[in-house]
């Protein structure tokens, strides 16, 4: 009887030790070369010539990495994105925490927005912000409307909040193409 108990306890101990082995620390990439290729093919609009092709879906490895997202969050303030977009609620620039995506919700679209700029005020940051950091920003921007997994999204904010922290945000369903505010007002 006692031997059986001993065996059970020992095997449980060994099993828990083995489980510990699987606790791997998330990799933190400091040089900005995450594994996986990012497509830079951008579809700007649902309107296109020729037959209807399905929109390109890009995968941004940074959206799976809590460190990359928190870096994106830091850079959002460092590079003064918050100066126009506030902390997602919008101001001079459009809000980023809602479902409307004027230039598309795909990571490659957001990358293009940051790198190339957009009409009516969004500056171009190509050559100014290193590529890897733009992808981190893209991940953070998408986390604002709950487009990334809640266990990797930043869970707390140091600034005054206009809504929940990205980790608690209820995911918005991205609308295919929003329109700039100026265009909405046209009767």
């Amino acid at each position, binding site marked *: 009887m006692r031997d059986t108990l001993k065996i059970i306890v020992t095997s449980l101990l060994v099993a828990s030790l083995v489980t510990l082995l699987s606790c791997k620390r998330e990799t933190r990439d*400091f*040089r*900005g070369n995450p594994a996986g290729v990012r497509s830079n093919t951008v579809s700007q609009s649902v309107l296109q010539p020729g037959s209807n092709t399905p929109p390109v879906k890009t995968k941004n490895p940074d959206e799976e990495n809590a460190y990359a997202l928190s870096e994106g969050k830091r850079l959002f303030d*460092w590079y003064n994105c918050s100066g126009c977009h506030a902390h997602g609620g919008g101001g001079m620039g459009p809000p980023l925490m809602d479902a409307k995506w004027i230039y598309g919700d795909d990571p490659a679209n957001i990358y293009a927005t940051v790198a190339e700029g957009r009409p009516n005020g969004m500056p171009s940051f190509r050559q100014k*912000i290193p590529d890897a950091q733009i992808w981190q920003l893209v991940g953070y921007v998408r986390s604002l409307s709950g487009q990334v997994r809640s266990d990797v999204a930043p869970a707390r904010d*140091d600034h005054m909040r206009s809504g929940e922290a990205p980790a608690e945000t209820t995911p918005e369903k991205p609308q295919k193409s929003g329109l700039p505010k100026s265009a909405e007002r046209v009767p």
Partner: protein
Amino acid sequence: MRERLKSLRRRSLRLLPLAALCCLLSDCGGGAQSPLSPAGLEAESINRLWWLMFYVCSAVFVLVIAAMLLAVLHARRVRERTAAELTATDKPLLKPAGAQEQRMRAVVIGALAVTVVILFVFLIASFLTGRAVTAPLTSEQNALTIEVTGHQWWWEVRYVDADASRMFTTANEIHIPVGMPVLVKLRSSDVIHSFWVPNLQGKKDLIPGKPAQVWLRADKAGAYRGQCAEFCGMQHAKMAFVVIAEPFEQFDAWRKSQQRTSNAPATAMQQRGQQVFLSAPCIMCHTIRGTQAGAAVAPDLTHLASRNTIAAGTLPNRRDELASWILDSQSIKPGNHMPPNNLSAEDLQALLDYLESLK
């Protein structure tokens, strides 16, 4: 002969830890980062408190060990005597509680009283020291005021002046005049750091959202190393700075040179270097006064070439170190906020030329 050698070896082995301790202690004296060689008013009083505690505690330690040894020897003598008496009388011996017992009680009570007195002396001494190191040395208007902001993982240093045009910002290097009271106002931009220059002052924590301040007065000229003393993330160990205490004339000359805007590029290479700086990601984080670069999240580089180290005391400020830092700082200080920069060889050389001209 062999026996003697063996015992000698055994004895020297026993002495080894003691010798090691002596070596360690001898290293404590002097040095650019040691509370045991105070160079300022506040550090002096901390130092006095330390030696008071050290000598008193050493004396107590020696006395306690001596008393214990005496007790052991005494007990052995008593046991031998008792055994002899037992064999003689064949009866258990009951010790009468007489004069001896009373003497022992007096010793214990005396020791207790002395302990209480010593602890009270320590309490008062440390209270007085605490008061001395936090007391304002002069009024705020008369002091040289420096704002120090802790960042992950470097120190921003801003010299405050009533005249806004005389204010300037530098990083990781604090110059102060000897003998003059300095008020250091502390702030943190991210996590908790701690400002510690052992030769001048005790530690002071920088808690985000809670301004703190310390007073300093250096009485001896010299360069004193400071270090972040509160774990603040990956590169906490590489978050150092230096306080340079110098005669007032020298300090004033330094201050005047720091107040100037940056040198204009003098050569074609330097000119190109400036263009590289302004068109590369450098401009997004750094300031060089007198150019378009005015971001405030990374060290101010207006007079970079005047500083002795780069990256918060991590590297000497030499051309080769600067080059490796610009190209791939992550291999030197992993996790720091400077991204790797992929510059062509000519651009890099031009940029280095320019940065080295920022005297």
